[in-house]
């Protein structure tokens, strides 16, 4: 595992670079913008492939409809906007024009969750994972690092059908080396452990690793599992890990209603119930503020994850005692 502690490149920068890389490989890729390309970092693609960059103006419903039309004609459109506008404004178009006919549209959702700008609750999207996960035929991924994002984008292009993936405006240390490959429905054990599993997705996986470090100081061995593929989810790995550790914390840069935490809880409830605590935004809008300030406010810091781990470990111990 190649850890680059000094990474300052945000996901969106890696997105812009990978887009050019994919554009060179696949002439069918067309990028559709709704007046945000300098924020989403698609400027490089625009410069490299000006004739494959389509500006639709500030019209997200039209953005996704046009993407559907291009997909029907054999292109691989990337209709791009902020996650908030994809999952709120244009949900109907994504559901019926794209997901129902199951066509080849790749949707990057930018400005996800807590770490965005200071734009506030209207722009900081916490419900996209839940909303997109609920759509039949849609695959959903939240990358844990830039290399993960790159592999997700490559896999998305290689996978027929609709895909939604997150492009967060944040930088985390690299989790993977160039040998990393992303697969739908496959999680990755980043750190083995026996006392508790920390299931992370997106930027929160990095926080889970930091939380595991905090727990190690107290002689607690936390297993860290990265679930970039939120849908389909890795049922097998979730159950295997819970069998090893007996309790779990989930962490997502999103609302806890309907996203990763619920997906993991559903798997465990049906296959192997263990104490679970979900870390994420709790039924609130993420209002304007500083990024680290907001992570603290919403109790999503590595320390919060470690505290939640101690809590589920206590619950596990209590139920084990009761069983005796």
């Amino acid at each position, binding site marked *: 595992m190649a850890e680059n502690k000094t990474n300052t490149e945000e996901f969106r920068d890696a997105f812009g670079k990978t887009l050019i890389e994919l554009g060179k490989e696949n002439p069918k890729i067309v990028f559709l913008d709704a007046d945000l390309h300098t924020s989403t970092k698609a400027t490089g693609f625009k410069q490299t492939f000006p004739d494959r960059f389509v500006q639709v103006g500030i019209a997200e419903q039209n953005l996704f409809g*046009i993407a559907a039309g291009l997909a029907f004609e054999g292109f691989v459109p990337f209709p791009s906007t902020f996650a908030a506008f994809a999952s709120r404004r244009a949900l109907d178009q994504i559901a019926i024009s794209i997901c129902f006919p199951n066509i080849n549209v790749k949707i990057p959702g930018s400005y996800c969750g807590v770490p965005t700008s200071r734009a506030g609750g209207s722009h900081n999207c916490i419900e996209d994972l839940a909303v997109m996960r609920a759509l039949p035929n849609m695959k959903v991924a939240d990358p844990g690092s830039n290399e993960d994002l790159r592999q997700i984008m490559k896999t998305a292009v290689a996978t027929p059908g609709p895909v939604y993936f997150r492009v967060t405006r944040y930088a985390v240390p690299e989790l993977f080396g160039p040998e990393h490959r992303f697969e739908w429905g496959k999680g990755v054990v980043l750190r083995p452990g026996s006392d508790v599993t920390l299931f992370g997705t997106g930027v929160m996986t990095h926080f889970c690793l930091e939380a595991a470090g905090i727990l190690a100081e107290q002689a607690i061995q936390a297993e860290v599992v990265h679930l970039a593929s939120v849908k389909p989810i890795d049922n097998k790995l979730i159950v295997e890990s819970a069998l090893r550790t007996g309790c779990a914390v989930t962490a997502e840069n999103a609302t806890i209603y309907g996203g990763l935490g619920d997906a993991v809880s559903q798997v465990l409830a049906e296959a192997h119930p263990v104490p679970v605590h979900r870390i994420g935004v709790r039924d609130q809008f993420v209002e304007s503020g500083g990024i680290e300030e907001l992570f603290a406010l919403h109790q999503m810091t590595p320390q919060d994850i470690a505290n939640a781990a101690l809590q589920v470990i206590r619950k596990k111990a209590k139920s084990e005692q009761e069983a005796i």
Partner: protein
Amino acid sequence: MMQLTTDELRHLQERAYQIRRLSVEMIAYSQWGHIGGSFSMAELLAVLYFKDMKLDPEQPSLENRDRLILSKAHGSPALYAVLALRGFMPEEKIYQYCELGGLEGHTHIESAPGIEATGGPLGMGLSVAVGMAMGLRRKENPRSRVICILGDGECNEGNVWEAAMSAAHYHLDNLIAIVDYNKAMAKGFVWDLMGIEPFADKWKAFGWNVLEIDGHDLQEVARALYTARWVKANGSPVVIIAHTVKGKGIEQAEFNYKWHTHAPDPETADAMLREVARNYGYPEEGYSKLEKAVEKETFYGGE
């Protein structure tokens, strides 16, 4: 000037009649569907599928075909009917309308060959058509046209005007929108619920060529499509505002929004079909499933 011959007129009139007949058959049999908005499009679809559009039922994905998107996807009975008549599917398949594994209630690409997109929620189809028209340009296919049929009430939707703005911006003169202006919506008249006039001016202001016709006059429909396709291909998209009558051909359904979503019971369907035949001068032909349908189940009208 483009002119249909007497033979063509007779042929297309018969097709329009069959579209109405099959629409009633499938709506009555499934006990769900939209008679009013299917009947108002009968002549439009007859001319499109039997005169204007380049199509091959044997090769429904032919690259240089014309594409049609029914944005008012609740008009599905009429579209499924014309596809069956044109040979895209066996006529018997219409009795699978709204049945599990059959033809979706609103047009769905997986239902039948010849359906080009999935729809249902109003306001979406024109955007998909814009994307297709852009796609054809990218593929350097100058011959094919994308035709999108919209409802009048549908033009209350903001998405329609986003699409309209972009089609003109991108000079998509390979895109032809047809508005089935039948004056009635689901629960009332357009002017009363949410007026769209001055309608032609709106499209003009959005940069479109506008043609206005009697949507039940086959000669006018054919001429407008010819004009849209060949004469007005001048760098702007074309909209044909087709003035029609909702439910045209059945007196009780004409101009009557109560027949927007409503399925007739078997006896009413039988009477309707006989009336349509009389009105268009064909031998009376009742509801083919009358006896079977009466035995089949209770009728709920399907609103």
